C-alpha cells in the first residue's frame, strides 16, 4: 500500500519542474548557451555524475509504502504499520543485519569484550563473534584479510564489467544519435571532441560503479562502515541520510522560490508603497536572528504534533512533517537574499525599452512581469538555487546539534555527527560513524560546490576569463 509523504510529493513535483524547465530552457538561447559551457567543464560533469547518483538514491528513498504482511489466510490483505521505501528494500540486507552493539568497519568480532560462556561452562571475557560480520568465516583471525582482499578484487572486477557495459551503451546510443560509426564516436569521446565532456563522465561513472560494487561485495559478509551503538549498519544510516540532505537542500529553495520571485519582481517593478512594504517585510524578517526563529518554529510544531498526536500514527510521518516545516522555516529565513537580488534586477529591467514599450501599450502589469521580467531573471534564480544547496546541507548538521534540526528519529548526517561526537571519547575510539557522515556529506557538498561554481561562472560571465 503506497504512502505518500508531503515531502515525497514535493520532491516529485520538483523533479517534474526540473524536467519541464529543462525542456523550456533548451529552446531559450540565453539559458541554453551557458549550460553548453557547463557541459564542457570536466569538473562540472564529474560532479554532475556524482550528484546524479546521490539524487537517484534520494529518489528511491522517496517512494514509500506499507509492506504486506504474510498471513495464513491468503484472501485478506493486511499491511504492516511499518513504512518502508524502495531503498529500504534494496538495502534490506543492510537494514536487517543488526548486531548487538558497536563493531568496527569490516570487523568479525564485537567492539567490546563480553562475558562468554564456553562449552565447558567456564566463563571468559573476550570479544564475541558478530552475528553477521564475517559470519561465513570459520576462523576470522587468519582468514578475514584474505577474504576481504578477495571480495574487493571481485567487486572491482564486477564494477569494471558493469561500468564497461554502461559506458559502451552510452557510446552506442551517442553514435546512433550522431549518425556516426561506433568507432569514431568512441574516438571523439576519448579525445574529448564533443560539446560535452564525456571523458570526465566516463571516468567518474567508472569510479563510482566500481566503488559501489566493492561495497556491495563487501557488505555481503561485513559491515563496511561498522555498526553503531544499537548495532545498526552505519552505511545504511549514511545512505538513508542522503534523502534528508537532498530534501533540505532543494525543497527549502523550492518552498521560498515563489515568494522570493513574486516579492522581488513586484517590489522592483511597481516601486512606491509596494516596494516599501516588501522591503519592510524582508528587513524585519532578516533582522530576527535566524536560529532563534527556527527554534521557536520547531517548538511550535512540536506543540502542534503533541496536541494532535493521534493524527500521526507513525514516527515517519511526524519526522516528515518536521522536515517539511524545517524546510519552510529555513526558506523563510533565507528568501530575503534572493528577493533583494531580484528587486535590484527588476529595477534595472523595468527601465529597458521593451518593457517600457509594453507598458506604454497598456499591457497588463502581471503580463509584463510574466512575459518580460521573469524570463530575464531566471538565471539569477538558478544560480542562487545551486549556490544555496551546499550551505543548507551543512546548516542541517549544525541545527541538529542544537536540537532544532530534523527529528531525532530521522536519519540525517547531523544526527549522526551529533551522536558520534560523544563516541569520540571512547577508548579505543569509535570513529566510523563520524567518518561515514563526514565522507558522504563531504562528497555531496564538494560535488555541489564544484557544480555550482561551474554554473555560476557560466551564467555570470564577468569572471569567466580567469
Amino acid at each position, binding site marked *: 500500500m503506497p504512502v505518500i509523504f508531503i515531502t515525497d510529493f514535493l520532491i516529485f513535483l520538483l523533479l517534474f519542474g526540473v524536467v519541464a524547465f529543462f525542456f523550456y530552457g533548451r529552446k531559450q538561447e540565453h539559458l541554453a548557451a551557458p549550460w553548453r559551457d557547463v557541459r564542457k567543464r570536466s569538473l562540472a560533469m564529474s560532479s554532475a555524475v556524482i550528484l546524479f547518483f546521490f539524487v537517484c538514491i534520494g529518489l528511491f528513498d522517496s517512494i514509500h509504502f506499507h509492506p504486506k504482511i504474510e498471513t495464513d489466510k491468503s484472501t485478506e490483505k493486511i499491511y504492516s504499520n511499518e513504512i518502508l521505501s524502495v531503498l529500504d528494500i534494496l538495502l534490506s540486507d543492510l537494514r536487517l543485519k543488526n548486531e*548487538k552493539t558497536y563493531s568496527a568497519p569490516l570487523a568479525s568480532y564485537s567492539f567490546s569484550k563480553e562475558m562468554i560462556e564456553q562449552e565447558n561452562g567456564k566463563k571468559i571475557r573476550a570479544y564475541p563473534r558478530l552475528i553477521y560480520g564475517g559470519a561465513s568465516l570459520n576462523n576470522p583471525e587468519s582468514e578475514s584479510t584474505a577474504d576481504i582482499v578477495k571480495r574487493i578484487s571481485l567487486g572491482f572486477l564486477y564494477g569494471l564489467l558493469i561500468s564497461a557495459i554502461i559506458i559502451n551503451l552510452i557510446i552506442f546510443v551517442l553514435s546512433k544519435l550522431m549518425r556516426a560509426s561506433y568507432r569514431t564516436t568512441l574516438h571523439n569521446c576519448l579525445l574529448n571532441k564533443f560539446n560535452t565532456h564525456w571523458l570526465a563522465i566516463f571516468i567518474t561513472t567508472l569510479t563510482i560503479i566500481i566503488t559501489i560494487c566493492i561495497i556491495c561485495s563487501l557488505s555481503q559478509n561485513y559491515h563496511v562502515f561498522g555498526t553503531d551503538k544499537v548495532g545498526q549498519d552505519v552505511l545504511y544510516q549514511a545512505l538513508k541520510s542522503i534523502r534528508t540532505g537532498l530534501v533540505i537542500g532543494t525543497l527549502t529553495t523550492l518552498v521560498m522560490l515563489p515568494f522570493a520571485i513574486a516579492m522581488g519582481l513586484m517590489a522592483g517593478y511597481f516601486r512606491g508603497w509596494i516596494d516599501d512594504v516588501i522591503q519592510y517585510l524582508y528587513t524585519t524578517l532578516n533582522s530576527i536572528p535566524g536560529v532563534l526563529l527556527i527554534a521557536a518554529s520547531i517548538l511550535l510544531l512540536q506543540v502542534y504534533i503533541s496536541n494532535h498526536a493521534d493524527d500521526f500514527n507513525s514516527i515517519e510521518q511526524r519526522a516528515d512533517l518536521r522536515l517539511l516545516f524545517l524546510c519552510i522555516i529555513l526558506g523563510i529565513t533565507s528568501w530575503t537574499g534572493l528577493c533583494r537580488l531580484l528587486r535590484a534586477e527588476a529595477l534595472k529591467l523595468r527601465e529597458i525599452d521593451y518593457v517600457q514599450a509594453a507598458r506604454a501599450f497598456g499591457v497588463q502589469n502581471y503580463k509584463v512581469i510574466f512575459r518580460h521580467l521573469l524570463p530575464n531573471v531566471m538565471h539569477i534564480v538558478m544560480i542562487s538555487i545551486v549556490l544555496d544547496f551546499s550551505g543548507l546541507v551543512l546548516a542541517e548538521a549544525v541545527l541538529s546539534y542544537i536540537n532544532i534540526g530534523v527529528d531525532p528519529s530521522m536519519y540525517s548526517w547531523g544526527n549522526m555527527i551529533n551522536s558520534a561526537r*560523544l563516541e569520540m571519547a571512547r577508548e579505543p575510539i569509535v570513529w566510523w560513524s563520524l567518518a561515514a557522515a563526514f565522507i558522504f556529506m563531504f562528497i555531496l557538498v564538494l560535488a555541489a560546490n564544484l557544480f555550482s561554481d561551474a554554473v555560476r561562472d557560466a551564467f555570470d560571465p564577468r569572471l569567466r576569463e580567469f
Partner: protein
Amino acid sequence: MTRKLIKIVNRLIFRTCRTPYFFIWVPLFCIACGPSSWNNPYPYQESNELVYYDSFSERPKHLDPVSSYSSNEYIFLGQIYEPLLQYHFLKRPYELAPLTAINLPIAIYQDKDGKILAEDSKAEDIASVKYRISIKPGILYQPHPAFAKDKSDNYLYHKLNLTDLKDIHTLSDFDNTGTRELLASDYIYQIKRMAHPRIHSPIAGLMEKYILGLDKFSDELKNIYQIKLNSGFLNLNDHELSGAKLIDKYTFEITLKEKYPQFLYWLSMSFFSPMPWEADLFYSQKGFAEKNISLDWYPIGTGPFMLTENNPNRRMVLERNPNFRGELFPIDGENKDRDIGLLDDAGKKMPFIDKAIYSLEKESIPAWNKFLQGYYDTSGIVSDSFDQAVQFNTQGDAQLTEEMEQKGIKLLTTTTASTYYMGFNMADDLVGGNTERARLLRRAISIAVDYEEYISIFANGRGKPAQGPIPPGIFGYVSDETGINPYVYQWENNKAIRQSVEQAKELMSKAGYKNGRDEITGKPLVLNLDTPAAGPGSKASFDWLRKQFAKLGINLVIRATDYNRFQEKMRKGTAQIFQWGWNADYPDPENFFFLLYGPNAKIDHNGENAANYQNEKFDLLFDQMKSMKNGPERQKLINQIVELVRYDAPWLWGYHPVGFSLHHDWYKNAKPNLMANNTLKYKRINPKLRAEKRIEWNKPIWWPIVIVLFVFSVILLPAFILYRRKENQLISW
C-alpha cells in the same frame, strides 16, 4: 618585491602586536614561564591551596532550601544549610544522626484525650504525635549583611531604599556583615515558610497533610497577603502555627496529626533548614529581587561552607564558613571502614578544605578529559568513556583499566536508591485496566523488553534489573530466589533468568494478540510510548525499544516530546506507555510504594502515581505497612504488596542504576552516601600530590605543530620561486 608583500603582511601583524594585542602576548609568556601546565584552566597560584575542584552540568534553579528539590541544588545547599538531622556518613544501612539537634527526636503518641500511648498502638487511636527537639547552643550563622548592626545595635541593611542599592550588584557589595546564634525559632520560621503564598515549596501539600494546623496557616497567610500585597515582607513570627511551638530559646515542638515515622527523614532534608527572619526581611526589600539578590541566589546558613561566588554561567564557589563551630569527624563506621582508612580522620575537626570550586561543564567529554588531566578531583563516568575507565573481570566485577590504575584513580560503586521504570497508563483502554487480556499483554511486554540488554548497551552494565519497585539497599528488598519476579524471571543456576520470548508470545496468544495482531479486527497492534527524551542521543534507545516490541509483533510508536508536554500528558492521562524514574527521598519502602497508591493517582489527585494504578487491596496493605517499624512483620506485608503489583504489572520494573564514581589519589575520605547531601565537609585533599601529577600528565606536545609548519613551508617554497621568476620577468618586460 617579495619584501613588499611581506612588508604588507608584516606591518599588519606588527601593528596588531604593538597595540592591544601586546597585552595578550605578555600573559601568554607568563603562563609559559609559570610552574603550571599550559592547559591548566585555573590560575596556577591556586595549585597549592586546599581547593576542591568539581563540575556541575546544570545550573541550579533555586537555592532557597524551602523550594529546592533536586540533586544539582543539594550539592550546594547541603554544605551551606544545616537541618536538624543528618545521615551518618559511614554507617550502612543508612542511619540518622543529630546535626544541630542534641539528639534524635523521639515521637510521643497521644490519643484524643491527650493520653500518652505506646509506640505500637494502632494508627487509628493516635490523635497526635509530638516531637520535642532541642538544638545545640552556640551555633553561629555565616557572616551575612542581613545580620549587620551599627554601634547602637540597629540593623544596618534592613531599611534600604532604591538609592542605597545603586552600587549594589551582588551580596559582596555590602561592606558590613554580622552573625547571630542559631535559635529554635529559626526552624519554626522555616516550617512556616512552606505555607508562604509567594514561595513554592514542593512538599507543602504533603506537610499540610501531617503537620497540625499548617493547612489553616496557609489559608490565613493567603488572606493576609492579599491585603498587604505590596509591602513585600510578611513577618511569619507574627502568626501562630499550632503544629510548631517554641518551648525555649533552644527547644521547640512539632505536632503531627497522625503517625508518620518517615517524618524524621524529612527533618534531615534541606526543607527543614533554619531560616533567620532577618534574612527574610533583608531579601524582601524593594529592589533586591530585580538585582538577583534573593534567597534563591544567596543562601544563608550555619553549615561548614558558604557560597561566596554565584555565577551559574561559569562557576560556583564555596568557601569555609569562618563562624563554623567545627563538627568532628565521626568516630565509628562499618567494620571495613577502618581498614581502608576511612576512619583516619576520626574525631578531627571538619571541614578539611578551604574552598570548593564547581565549574560549569555542559558537555560531558570536556569534563571527562579534564578529569583525566587532573583538573577535576572526582568524576562520574558517562557511557561513552566507560570502556576507557572500567572493565569487568571474569567474575563480572567492575575493575579499573590499567590506564586508570597507573594514574592512581580510584573507583567507587554503589547501587542507587532509584528506579527507572516503564509504566502503563492503567486508565488506558488497551493496555490498562483490570481485565485479564490487558494484564497478559502487559506481562508479555514485561518479558519481551530485555532490560539486561538495555543495561549492557546503554548503561555499560551499570544497572540491576528490577524485580519490583524497591531497589536494593532499601528495607523490603529481597535478594535471593524468593525475591525474583516470577512473572518475568525464572531461577536457574543461582540467578534470575528472563523468561524466553516464546513464553511472552504464548501470553500474547492467550491475550488474543497472536503474532501481535488483534484476533478480532485482524489489525496489527500499535502502541504508543511517550517519553520526554528528545535529541539525537535518544535515537539509539528509541530504535532499541522498537526492536523489543517488534519481537512480539507490536509496532511501537514513540512520541518524544519536551518535558512540559510530557507532564501535561501524564496529568491528563492521555499517555499509553511512558518512561519515568524515581529517586528515593529517604531510605524507606513507603517512598516507592506510594508511587502506586490509588489515592495518589495522577489523573484524579495530581499525585505521583503516574500509572494511575488502582487496587483496593494494595491501598489497604499500603496504609498498614507505611507506619510500621522495620521488622519481619513489615517484610511480610511488603512481600504481599510486591506480589500484588507483580501480578498486575502496571510497570515494567525496569532497572536500578548502579552509580560509578571515580576520584583521584589525592582525594580522601570518599564513600558513596546516596542519602546525605552534606558530604563535602568530610573530604580531604592533598594539593601537593595534585600539583605534581598535573604537571606530569600535561606536558605540552609541540612536534606536530612544527611538522605542520614545515610541510606548509615546503609546499609554499616552489610558489616563492615562481614568484621571484615572475617578478624578474615583469621587470624585464
